[in-house]
């Protein structure tokens, strides 16, 4: 076997269709990213904007809740550990005030924090999706959100 410098495509042995082509008109275009780690929000915003999304970043939990209530967003990426208000509290506040049903946005929890099972059950009830950030690169996040465009 060839032991020299690896070829450019490490996946050449495996037949997998290439990345899905991003449709020109996104149904879920406007994204609110509530994330206090600026490096992460920077990476997410960059990858999502390249894919044609429009991204607003919010660092603070309470401000994120206010932004969410404007109903300007199709997708809300919601971190859990946030200053002033956790992601779970945001979901709960929206749910308890009855606003959640009025919002068009899909809520995707993006976190690195492992949840207790009770919290997990709560999240499963309230959110539309859940990802562990460390396991998903920004481009994979884009793929993930693409599944919203093409419901199975």
């Amino acid at each position, binding site marked *: *076997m060839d*032991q020299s*410098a*690896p070829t*450019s495509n*490490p*996946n050449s*042995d*495996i037949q*997998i*269709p290439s990345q*899905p082509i991003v449709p020109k008109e996104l149904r879920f275009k406007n994204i609110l990213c509530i994330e206090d*780690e600026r*490096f*992460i929000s920077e*990476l*997410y915003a*960059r*990858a999502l904007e390249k894919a044609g999304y429009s991204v607003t970043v919010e660092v603070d939990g309470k401000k994120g809740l206010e932004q969410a209530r404007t109903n300007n967003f199709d997708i809300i990426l919601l971190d859990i*550990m946030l200053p002033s208000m956790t992601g779970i509290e945001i979901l709960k506040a929206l749910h308890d005030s009855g606003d959640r049903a009025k919002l068009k946005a899909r809520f*995707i929890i993006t976190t*690195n*924090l*492992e949840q207790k*099972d*009770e919290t997990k059950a709560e999240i*499963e009830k309230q959110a*539309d*999706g*859940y*990802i*562990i*950030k*460390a*396991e*998903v*690169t*920004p*481009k994979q996040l884009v*793929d*993930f959100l693409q*599944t*919203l465009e093409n*419901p*199975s």
Partner: protein
Amino acid sequence: MDYFDKLAKQIALYVFGAMVISSVITAVITWFCLYLFPTLPAALVIIGALAVGLISAFFASRVVAEYILEPLRVLWKAILHVSPGQHEVSPPDLEKIRIGRELVTSLALQVYQLASSTPSETKASEQTTSKTMIDHANILQTFPLPIFVMNKDRIIVFANPAAAAYIGKTLQEIIGINLYSVLDLAFSEGETFDQWLTKSRTSKVTSEKLWSHVRLSNGEQNGDKQLDMAAYYNKDSTDNAETIIALFDKTAEYAKNDDGMSFVAIAVHELRTPLTILRGYIEVFQDEVSGTLDPEMADFLRKMQASAQQLSSFVSNILHVARVEADQLYLQLHEEKWEAMLTSIVKDMALRAHVRDKKIQLSIQPNLPAAAVDTVGMYEVISNLIDNAIKYSGKSNRIIVRSYLRDDGLIETTVQDFGIGIPTSIIGNLFEKFYRNHRSRSSVGGTGLGLFLSKTIVDAHGGQIWVKSKEGEGSVFGFSLLPYAKLASEQKNTDNKDIKRVAHGWIKNHSFYKR
């Protein structure tokens, strides 16, 4: 005593009647035969008539015996009717007695009187039972363990103050309420209380069981509790106490483990944040500048990328092992297209193989049935097996992943390398925690968590993991999975149908790996 005289006369009359009947029969037959058949010898006629007379005497005496026994029978029934535990015996009908009615009626009435006078005595004994109940209750009042007593309808008929205090309610709020409305219990493994009780009811007279690591959801203000629980079932319990439950609080003790768990959770969170960022920026470089780099730099970049990936897998491994240790690894099995899932995981692993100059060949039998899989867990299993294959491949550079349907209907998946192999002396210990091939420690990194975790996860799927290896020739690790249809037919589980778990996350009604 008149009654007896009367009865004696009646019996005598019946016996006399029976004797007269048989004598008359004998005489009539004798006369009849001699008159009709004068040729017959008289001796023969008399013997024949005597025989007939004796037979009729026999039957007549049976009838008489029945009549004479009747008063006794009636008395017997009357006594049975009033004795405890024989309530199904109906009272005798005194009107229908043919002989000795007065005597039997009077005796039966005396029996009834005795029986109805016993209530005063029975009451006394009842008082003693309820008194012992009260004594027991008194003892239990001050008993520090929470105790609940339930009747056959699972209604709490008794609880002690310790029980009320433990769940933060008053006794009035507990007694008379269904147990399940009072105690919201979650059992960590094996039979639940309800399953045990149902089973005990169908097959046992008494039964007892102890559960450990039970979780009690206790409302927001009281907080959750962790406990051990003992239950005793007694089908024939006389005082409505079919099942008795005692709780042993272990919240503080088990919370220590939880603290250990939350330490791991915090550490994992802290590790993951910079990892997320590293992987994100590396991806930007990979996508946007790798084409302009010289081959060596591009190679370095891939190595960074692969190593960051490996680190995040390892961090997940730590977390899951901590979960296993704390009995908190919960898997949810869902219907997954196995071919698509395996392909996707192998694709994720390709970079890691590539930077170590290994190539993964994937061979999947077409038209495999959908598998019952917890996607996060299964991702760990396959990535661990492939990581091991990469680590222990030595100079060989081929890794083969196969998946096929076994004859017994299970889906088998194997990961084969052609590397250093495993000595037979240690092959039995491979799936133990922290076990490693010590001879290879100098050349190969790793913690010995991967195989332990893989086995735990495969076991939880209802599958089996195995290894075949020969030193110097390589190893094959394989595991079996249940097709979803098989699992679904074994246990109907339609909960959470709208949620699909995917590796490292989930999305409602969508599959991350659908491509």
